[in-house]
């Protein structure tokens, strides 16, 4: 079986469809396509052995193929509030940087995430965070505050968590109990953009930490693979439910590590999604749970593992 690896293609608009067709022909998937003025960015999965070929084809078009560890993941960046204290810096800079590494990021601004004594997390916030592959908590500057409020802010959150804060990594590891999956120290509440080399190095460290955490999850998944590869299901949905093409979202079907978020209203479209045939005799309903998402009225698809369905598409 060919291994698909996540890569980013950056190039011009001119003849970029050739690259898109090539990825398609090689059996890869484009999970996100951005066209910004003259530039095109394709976040995609391609067979490992064919990266050289894509580079070759992209050369005359001045296109660039780079490894993007976070393609196909949806990450929540959790900010204690949407006030001027916490935004736009830190949270937006983190989200933007993760996006460059290929992730689809969503900002979760908590209603009452500030104040060490008064901080809390409501059920909607908890459920939305749980719909992601990973949550990055952009916490503040004081050790004492993080120690007191973090247990409250993570209550009920089951997805892996990467904690960031101003104290160094060792301190974070010491004060976070039970341990989180990843830590990045030296990123606290700041009032300026991340632009100095040492600040950008911190963001690189964050990307590494996030991809390390997700790799651990990927390894687990490899032991009991999903019944269908999420980008493949995305391609099928985009192909067969034509309303998806009429959505104006940047990612009408968002690929996650273990599922998809389809940005169509749940009530009218869930039956159609459930009865969609993936291959002959196997419908989406057979291999996945199609549930309402807490994010607006979208559809959330959670693909079941092979051990549960006995089907591998």
């Amino acid at each position: 079986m060919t291994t698909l690896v996540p890569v980013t293609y950056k190039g011009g608009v001119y003849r970029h469809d050739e690259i898109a067709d090539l990825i398609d022909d090689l059996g890869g998937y484009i999970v996100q396509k951005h066209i910004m003025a003259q530039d095109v960015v394709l976040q995609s999965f391609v067979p490992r052995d064919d990266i050289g070929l894509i580079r070759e084809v992209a050369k005359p078009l001045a296109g660039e193929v780079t490894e993007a560890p976070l393609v196909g993941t949806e990450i929540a960046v959790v900010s204690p509030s949407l006030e001027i204290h916490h935004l736009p810096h830190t949270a937006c800079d983190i989200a933007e940087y993760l996006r460059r590494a290929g992730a689809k990021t969503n900002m979760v601004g908590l209603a009452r995430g500030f104040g060490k004594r008064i901080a809390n997390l409501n059920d909607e916030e908890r459920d939305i965070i749980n719909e992601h592959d990973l949550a990055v908590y952009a916490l503040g500057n004081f050790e004492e505050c993080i120690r007191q409020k973090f247990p409250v802010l993570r209550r009920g959150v089951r997805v892996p968590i990467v904690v960031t804060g101003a104290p160094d990594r060792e301190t974070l590891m010491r004060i976070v109990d039970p341990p989180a999956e990843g830590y990045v120290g030296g990123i606290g509440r700041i009032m300026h953009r991340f632009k100095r080399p040492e600040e950008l190095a911190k963001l690189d460290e964050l990307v590494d930490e996030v991809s390390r955490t997700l790799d651990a999850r990927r390894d687990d998944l490899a032991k009991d693979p999903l019944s269908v590869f999420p980008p493949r299901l995305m391609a099928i949905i985009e192909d067969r439910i034509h309303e998806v093409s009429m959505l104006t979202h940047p990612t009408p079907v968002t690929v996650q590590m273990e599922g998809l978020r389809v940005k169509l209203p749940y009530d009218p479209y869930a039956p159609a999604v459930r009865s969609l045939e993936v291959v002959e005799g196997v419908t989406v309903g057979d291999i996945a749970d199609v549930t309402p998402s807490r994010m607006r009225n979208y559809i959330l698809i959670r693909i079941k593992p092979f051990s549960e369905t006995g089907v591998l598409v």
Partner: protein
Amino acid sequence: MPPLTYFVVESPDAVGREVYERIASDVLQDLDLIKVIDRLHIYVDPKVPIFVAAGLLRHMPREIRVSDFANINPGDAEIVLDIGDETYLAPLLRELWARFGKENVDQPDRFTVVLPAGVVGEEELERLVVADPSETLYKDVIYALQYIAPEGFKVRRQYIKNGKFYYVASEDTLPGDIVETVVAPIFAKMGETL
């Protein structure tokens, strides 16, 4: 940031202290208050929890009068105001309308305002106060401190008068004597009394 004459951030948390120094200078720079604030002392202890900022303003901008931005040419039938700087035109018109009524204030073009002769003496008109920039400055300084302080510290007491200001904030109820016990010693460190 060009140094204030005195700028100290104190905190038992060494990492937090350093970050707050940067936050304070970034905010003051962003809001263009560095020239306004002369001395600033910040004390923040998340364990208490308390945030105190106290300091002195450099100089207060004075009140803006008509003579600062307009020439007054009294004639036999009318007084013509020749506007040099439009910045304060809107508050000027508002003031003139309130005093003399809209029907008596004519503005034939952008830079000219005409009043009927005799409604006001030349000197009185020249000395008419149109705006007081210190009013907004007070708000800006308090806003900056609110912005610097940790967000959860919602309970606060603020003061700005005669070139001195302080801002005390906490998550919990502030004790009634907080100014005497916490703010006064900080002013003493700067060699001032409140």
